[in-house]
């Protein structure tokens, strides 16, 4: 379950990263943001941002080129 879902399928650099950051600002500590996208570099870079922001990476999965990253604030 996610408290906020961010759909960035089809979006390219830097939109997935920026939308993730915007969503994190909106949720309360402990809540989960789920980002769903297709941009390959963002699948690597969102976890880097999660680390830099001191957040918790819950899990990452990918099916048919669509990835799903869950982050706890």
């Amino acid at each position, binding site marked *: 379950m996610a408290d906020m879902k961010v759909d960035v399928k089809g979006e*390219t650099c*830097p939109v997935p*990263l*920026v939308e993730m950051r915007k969503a994190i600002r909106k949720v309360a500590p402990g809540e989960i943001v789920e980002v769903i996208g297709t941009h390959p570099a963002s699948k690597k870079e969102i976890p880097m941002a999660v680390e*830099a*922001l*001191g957040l918790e990476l819950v899990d990452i999965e990918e099916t048919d080129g669509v990835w799903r990253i869950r982050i706890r604030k």
Partner: protein
Amino acid sequence: MNNYKGDNMVDETKKADKATIIVHSGDMDKIYSALIVANGALSMGMEASLYFTFWGLQRLQKGGLEKGPLSKMHFIGLGKSMIKSRMKKANVASLEHLFKDFKELGGKVIACEMTMEIMGVSKEDLDQDLIDEYGAVGTYIHEARDSKITLFI
């Protein structure tokens, strides 16, 4: 809304890392570079300042954001429309969209006063909603001296 230092989750007691970019060029492709780097920095928990000077300042004139030529192969606008249609195909965000995100994430815009004087540009000519501060070299150094990333674009 623009200032969210308290929201930085890296370490509440420490000042956030900062990126400061001089936007000297008014070329469309270079404005893209500046905004993409700045938005990336903001997204990864840094603060970001853009210092618009010289040709870059023209992009802050009312309605001027998307008006820059291509830095290479502009060909009186032909090259630019070709690149723009390719960008649209690749679903690249518009400069207006990137600028809106930049401001929403707390990015700061500084307009160079000397350029305004040289180019005969008044505050009324500029899109003042975008600008946080008017300054000179001292403002840039003040921002840049404790920045981890500084770029001249």
